[in-house]
């Protein structure tokens, strides 16, 4: 795997050490008034951006922390966040 990721605690490390945690979708919605459809969308639907997206990664073989980072899905490389998000 050519991917490397920058863990906020351990620094730039081999992609093998991490587990993918999906796109960044924001916190769990409150249960009150939640429709089944909205819940299902939160759990299962993804944007599948072709380009740079924010996502969660877990440093499984390292410090054991979850963090977000930006990745270019078309090149499978960590990337700078787009201007709008800086």
């Amino acid at each position, binding site marked *: *795997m*050519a*991917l*490397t990721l920058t863990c906020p605690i351990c620094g730039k490390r*081999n992609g093998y050490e991490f*587990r993918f*945690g999906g796109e960044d979708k*924001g*916190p*769990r919605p*409150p*249960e*009150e008034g*939640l429709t*089944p459809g909205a*819940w299902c969308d939160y*759990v299962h639907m993804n944007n599948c951006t072709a380009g740079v997206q924010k996502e*969660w990664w*877990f440093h*499984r073989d390292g410090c*054991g*922390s*979850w963090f977000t980072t930006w990745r270019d899905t078309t*090149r*499978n*490389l960590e990337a700078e966040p787009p201007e709008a998000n800086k």
Partner: protein
Amino acid sequence: MNRLNQLPTLRIDPAVNHSLTYRGRTYQGVAGDTVATALFANGVRIFGRSLKYHRPRGLYSLDGECSNTCMEVDGIPNVRAENTLLENGMTVKEQNVKGSAERDWLGFMDKLDWMMPAGFYYKIMHKPAAIWPMAMKQIRKAAGLGIISADHKMKGRYDEQFLKAEVTVIGGGAAGMAAALAAAQSGRRVILLESRPHLGGCFDYRVSTTSDGTPLHERARQLAEKVKQTTNIRLFEHTSMVGAYNNNLITAFQVGKADDGFTECYIEIRSDSVVVATGCIERPLLFDNNERPGVMQVGCAHRLARTYGLLPGNAAVFSVGHNPGLEAAVDLFDLGLKINCVADIREDGQDPALLLALTERKIPVLKGWVATKAHGSKMVQKATLCTIDGMVKRQFSCDLLVASAGLTPVSGPFILAQAIMGYDDHTGYFLPDQLPEKMFPAGRITGINDPDAIETSGRLAGLEAASAAGADLWTKVAETRNALAAMPGPERGCKLVIAPVKGRKSFICFDEDATVKSVKQAIDQGFDVPELVKRFAGVGLGPGQGGIPGHNLPLFVAKYTASKETPKPTTVRPPLVPAFIATYAGYNHHMFKRTPIHHSQKADGGIFRNIGVWQRARYFTADVDCKEEILNVRNNVGMLDASTLGKFRIHGPDALKALQRVYVSDMGKAGKDRIKYSAMCNDDGCVIDDGVVVKRGENDYYFTTSTGRAGQTAEWIRYHTRYDNWDFHLVNLTDAMGVINLSGPNARKVLTKVVDIDLSNEAFPFSGYREFYIQDTIFTRALRLGFVGELSYELHVPSSYMQAVWDLLTEAGKAFGIRNFGVEAQNVLRMEKGHIILGQESEQRTNLLDVGLGFLWDRSKTVARTVGAVALRQAANDTGRLTLVGIRMEDDARPARDGSLIVDNKVRGYVATMRRSFTSGEAVGMALVESQLAGAGTRLEIFEDECNGVRIYARVVPMPFYDPEGERMKS
């Protein structure tokens, strides 16, 4: 054959003999020989037969770019004999022959080429369809490379290394060595990869000189010596680069030497920057019978003589298109080769010094001439030369035809790194339009051929790469760039695409027996770009990938289609050169964990199974039903090593919030001195884990998970709290603590002997939690659980004390009939009690309610946003889900196998666990069935694997099957 024993360029040691067996005879080679050169030294000229036409094939490039010398070596097929160093005692066989390579009964196939036009296997033999399987069988028999037996066991040790470098240099020729040295001088960590067994590249075997008069072979050895003395260059010889990925990840494999600890070693390098100094191979010359044994490339002929001391023939004709070809002719003449003629495709532009040298040696030179045909049925006997316009022809007798259209860069690393390739009109090379990030070319790959320029370009690339990797060398870079600009630049390349022939027997790809004619056929049928021709006519699909046709195919397609577009080479893919799967596999990883008392379990006769990441004792007797182990727990007392249980501490101000998030129950009710049983679900409400939680103090909890979930639990809890910024700490104690499950009616009597607290049922009741010291020393957490349905103590002690506690209990229990029980006995014991094991009584889609654990779920704690709660609320109203029920066979002597299907006219569920209970004598178990079938007394039809249509039957019965009131475990 007599060797030229005294050359300074030799890479063999003529004093050390190695023998090999070929066709039942023993041949002698010497140390440093490859399998191919050793055979060549013994007069072998035909190494095998070609894929389709069974044409004889011999030495051609000496670097393994084609399958010509693929042979079976020591039982391994498709070994490239010219890349494999000879070892004493090797056994070698030829491939794809009926008879022998010399006399192949299928040689007549060569005359049947008209039956096999491009893509014939896609178009012929489809009708009638019935003959296709038979025809395919025959074709497979006649065509192909080596044969591997189905039960082949790969010998050898395969290692792997994962390295980090600041600069990686691919190619250990003069440019590569200069680059490595330049980068290393700045203190960078450098890795240098060389595919041949020795450094030197194209300098290694040449006697021409640098500007200061040093012969190139000597210069190569000087540089190699420097490289080896430089401590921050890590050198890998006999190491082929096979992959380049983005982020400059380079993969390669190294072939081990006799004293290495490995046969082959997979190498993966993360490099800040990369120098590509892979140099050039030769562009094959296209003419009739251009692959007849006796036809070889310039480098092959030159290296045979200079590196291995073997004159490649007696009388030679050269048909070349570049100066190294003329240089080789001069040098080989001086070594004793008779040269009848040198034809140079170029009308002008030759190096005058070389022309003069040829004249001095009275070698006739024909400018603007090219070979059009090699004659001779098995070996070259004669060559036809012709002017490039095809007008004038002459024939020369010869047994060696050295043929090459020019040079072609080894651009594989660039293509693998996804560079867009362009065509350079001056050199005729395919080179990247834009270089990949932090990748620098050096040496002949850039088109230069002047020895000083080669070294300087290497130095430049090394400095650039070091700078890209953080060194501040930009002034030096600029100086070196200027120095290089003052040296001879790229040379004009020979543009001839094909000799003036029709091409029926002009092979553009040797591996797949693809001729110029078949390429024309493919184009005529509309497959008119190289990538399509490649697939339809099979050009470059063989083991050598683009080695032989890579350059010629796009040129020929452009010429034949009269395309005005820039020709585009086909894509090569990793592995760039053939590699063993064994090399990629590396070690046989049998990785597992052992419990702290593994060895004593083993000494007690434990039979181990890999369960998840652990090795666990499954049985302690040969009786797989474990009758004695089970009954001993029911009647006396047993001990189980349950150290594999997941064990965690969670503490901090927000620890309870985190527990509320992942456990379905209201964890606020977890109390001191009492254990709370609960379960975790995923966001679909499917149950993934169960365990117990104890509150040990304010904001401090201890909990267990199932064996299989221990590895993921920390990740799971942190994932589901990742947005909350809660303040808690999670400690995985799984490996730090061992667990002994002491179970049976005598358990209390045994434990009383080793501890001095009150263990009476009133003082330490069922579901209780106590902490105490065994022998005043060993801190113990004791949980009164009832998983197996008897009076039980689960003792959690530090791993380092596990053996001591185990031994104490064994000693204390002697009077009460204590003995081991294993995982299988536990499985039956708990099944009789109707206690579930997740993963056994559940699968991916099983939710908390299906397995009857709905009572654990606290619907009121919506604020906690418990994982799975939303889905459970919806699933609560679902009909048609599976439900866990107890079942009993109609025939108690015939329990159904675990996993058997419950059917009527379709699948309605399955048996989760079933055993014949020794306690009751009944065949009972648990099954997941559709809820309509869950009513007590329902008759279930069971389909077992290999039942031959005979169904067996069970009925739904109430659970548990043993001690329904739980009096025994609560006693």
